[in-house]
Each structure stands twice: as C-alpha cells, then as structure tokens.
C-alpha cells in the first residue's frame, strides 16, 4: 500500500488555503503509508534565470546560514540584475533560490557538504519529504501554511527499497516535474539500464524513481505528456497509480489492471485526487462534487 493525494485549485480561495485543505488529505492517508511522506507544491514561478532548489539535510538542526555566502563566494551573488541568492530554511529542509543551472548547483552542493541532498529543482516547484510519520512530517514542514496552484503528496509503505528520506516520494526529475506512485514495478532495472545508456543518473534504487525519470526523459525528447504516457503504458511492467505534476498540469493514470485505487472529486473550486474517498470527505462542497473512479490506462490531466 501507499497513499497518494493531489489538490488543484480552480479559485483564489483554494490557492490561498491549499495547504489547509490538502494537509488533512495527506495525514488521513498515513493509514496507507506510515513510514514516510512528502509533498510537492507549485507556486508562482521565480524569474528566469533563477531556480528554486529544495535541499534536504540529514541533520535536523542543520546550520544553513553559511550556505548562501559560500555559494556567492564561488559564483558571485545573483545575475547583476537584482536577482540574488537567498535561502528559506525550515529545519532540515531549505529552499535555495539562485541564478545557477541545476547541474552546477547540484555538483556545488555535493562539494560544499556531502550531507546535503538536492530533492527538487525548478522555477515553480518545492518538494518536502522525509522518513517518519506523515503527521509529523506535515507539522515539521508546516504543510498547512502552504499556498499555491496545486500540490501532490504521498504516504509510503515501503515494499521494495529502503525507508530513507531519499526513497520517499514525490520523486522529481529534471526541473518542475514530480511523480508519486502507489504500486510496484517489476521492471525498474530494465528501465534504469536503458536510461543509464542515455546518460541519466539515479539517486536511489527505488522503482518509482525509474518511472519518474523515464517519463521526464521522454518529455525531454520533445514528446507531449500523452505520448510519453502511452509509451509508459507499454514499457512499464507492474502495478501503478501515478499522479504527476508540472507547473501547468496535474495528471493521473492507472495501469491496465487498476488494482491500485484512486478517486477523483471535482467541483468548480478544485480537483482533488486521493487513494481513498475518506481523505476527501472534509473538503468544502464535497457533497456536490462530481466523484468518479479513473479508468485503467486512461489519461486524466487537469490544467493548473
């Protein structure tokens, strides 16, 4: 088991209260995934050439204060057009905004402190994830305070690889793309070998990371998401309900067997997705929502 949740705002009110509405969805699904949890939130993008980096520290009491200075010492502060490096620390998690390419920042981060780990990069997306009880994770990173256009979350009950912060979902690949997964794949190593030959590298041995990087790699080849997902239907073997997000869309698919549950509730205010209806029961207007179970190998995509 695992739990997946997603909430996409169709109104300013829901955007402003995204975290308040989504957090009970997330903590309710802890019953399906008590060992780790995570949330990806999409906000207004930072101006190019800036990027937002979600950075994870293994120590809960990490001292972030030296990081921006060290970064600026090496690369200069910002781009000279008023875009400067800044950091929003939150316990063992920090969002670093800097005018650096992803790979440059990533390799610098590893040199700066190997105990730091990059979990997401992009202009709009922030990712928070950790091992431990989902309710504690939600509280630690103050999920209820979050606002944004949409978010996807995951509660994990590990069945195939280690329980660590890095093995938690959401997984990310490239920039501004994330994926959460309920299920298990039987050919992740095949996908992985294929992608490694294309020059991709992996952070973990987790099956979901293989799916996440596979789909994002197809998008990088210039494919539309729908085309990429039809390739995924053919190449991915196993069970899955995937919920994916980019700044523009939140997208849901289930494998041909549809063993892994999902329910969608849509109103004029929001689109809510969850593994189980009970985690949606608190949402305003749920009584009048259009509620349905997504069909196998159908692509459901909603514009943010």
């Amino acid at each position: 088991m695992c739990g997946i949740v997603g909430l996409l705002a169709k109104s300013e009110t829901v955007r402003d209260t995204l975290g308040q509405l989504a957090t009970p969805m997330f903590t309710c699904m802890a019953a399906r995934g008590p060992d780790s949890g995570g949330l990806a939130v999409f906000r207004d993008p930072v101006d190019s050439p800036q990027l937002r980096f979600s950075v994870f520290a293994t120590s809960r009491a990490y001292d972030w204060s030296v990081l921006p200075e060290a970064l600026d010492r090496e690369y200069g502060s910002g781009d000279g057009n008023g875009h400067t490096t800044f950091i929003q620390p939150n316990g063992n998690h920090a969002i670093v905004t800097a005018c650096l390419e992803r790979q440059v920042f990533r390799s610098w981060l590893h040199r700066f402190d190997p105990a730091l780990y990059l979990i997401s990069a992009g202009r709009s997306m922030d990712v928070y994830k950790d091992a431990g009880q989902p309710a504690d994770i939600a509280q630690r990173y103050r999920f209820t305070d979050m606002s944004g256009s949409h978010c996807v979350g995951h509660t994990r009950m590990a069945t195939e690889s280690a329980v660590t912060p890095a093995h938690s979902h959401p997984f990310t690949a490239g920039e501004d793309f994330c994926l959460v997964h309920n299920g298990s794949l039987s050919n992740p190593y095949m996908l992985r070998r294929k992608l490694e030959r294309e020059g991709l590298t992996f952070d973990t041995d987790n099956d979901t990371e293989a799916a996440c990087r596979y789909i994002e790699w197809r998008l990088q080849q210039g494919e539309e998401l729908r085309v990429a997902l039809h390739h995924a239907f053919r190449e991915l073997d196993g069970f899955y309900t995937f919920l994916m997000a980019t700044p523009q869309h939140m997208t849901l698919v289930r494998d041909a067997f549809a063993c892994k549950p999902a329910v969608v509730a849509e109103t004029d205010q929001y689109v809510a997705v969850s593994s189980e209806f009970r985690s949606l029961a608190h949402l305003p207007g749920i009584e009048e929502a259009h509620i349905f179970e997504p069909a196998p190998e159908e692509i459901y995509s909603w514009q943010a």
Partner: protein
Amino acid sequence: MASVKDAVVLDLATQSLRDANAYLHEHAHELSGKTVRILNPAGLHSIAAGANVDTRIEIEGHAGYYAAGMNRQAEITIHGNAGCGLAENMMSGIVRVKGNASTCAGATAHGGVLVIEGDASSRCGISLKGTEIVVGGSVGHMTGFMAQAGRIVVCGDASHGLGDSLYEAILYVRGAVQGLGADAEEQEMTPEDFADLERLLELAGFSHEPTEFKRIGSARQLYHWNPDAAQDY
C-alpha cells in the same frame, strides 16, 4: 444512541465506527424490524460490516471499503457511493447502493441480493458464490471472474474480460460487451432466464425488458486440465 421516531440513529461524526458496528452486533435482538440510520459515513471503511440483524440500515452518504460486508438478513441502503469490496461475502439480505461501487463489489458473496444503481468498477462479483447482483449502469473489466454460482445482471455495458474462467454463475448484459474472458460464451436465453431477469429487474426497480439482455455462461472448457492443450495455457 438517539432514537428518532422508530429509527435508531448512529452518527459517525460523534461516535466511533467501532462502537456503531458493535451496537449493531450486540443489539441485534432489539433492532429486529426497526430502521437504523448511520449518519456522516465520510467514506469510512467497514460500515455495517458483519451485521446479522433483521433490520433496515440506511447509510446516509458515501461509504468506504467493505461496506455491508458479510451481511446477513439486513436490508442495507447506501445513499452515496461505495468503495472497494462492497458487500463482500454477503450471506443474505439486500444491499443497495444509490451511487457507484468501486472494485470487487459482491466478491465471494453467497446469498441475498446486491443492487448497484450506478456503475460498478472492475471485478464485480469476482468468485461469486450465489448472490444475485443487479447493476443499473456499466461494469469494469474482469466482472464475474471465476464466479461459481449466482447471477450478475448488467443494465449497461461490460468492459473486457467479462466472465473470465466462469464456473456456473450466469451473467446477463443489456449493453455492449467489450470482450469476453477465457471460457465465457454467449448462450441462448431460456424461459428460466427470462423469469429470473424479470424478477431481478423488478426487485431492483429497473424497467428494462428481459428480452433486451444477452446471457453469458461458461463454455466449461477450463473445468479439467487438458494435457494435450498445454501449449494453449
């Protein structure tokens, strides 16, 4: 337990599901012939599971997994949708869902009648052992998989793999069948089929004509291992 007129009210917003289910089990003798209303189900799992009481149970909203599971005697109505495993292994009584049901509705169910007014998802009536299921809408893939006894009436369409590895349960479909499963075949309707359909449609409250349905049954080719056809398995 508040009593409103003749109805006993169990409000899941103010009492635990465990207490509500325990009440149904422990007070069965007092509840005979009465109505129990379960308020604020909020998608919780196992609502009214294991009831063995001659009473009406009205679930006023959406139910989660295994609602009305193992039911005996009770007439249970869910005024909303039901999650996975609705009326799983029910033994007798009537379970009715006003909305849709998720996967495995009526799985392994032995007796009584299950009515789903909306759609049922995949594997409806999987391993059915005697219950009669009537679905007002359509059913998902692998409906009636390995069903041994009982009937499944589908007023809408059926997705692929219908009646795969079917034993002696009979399926009736009014709409389109996307594909039959292994060893399932369309068969000629008999006078008994028309009589059963008429009875079940009336009981469920649907006004379709029995003549609009086709019968799917087992071709009985998978009953015994055939070593000469090993390459086909």
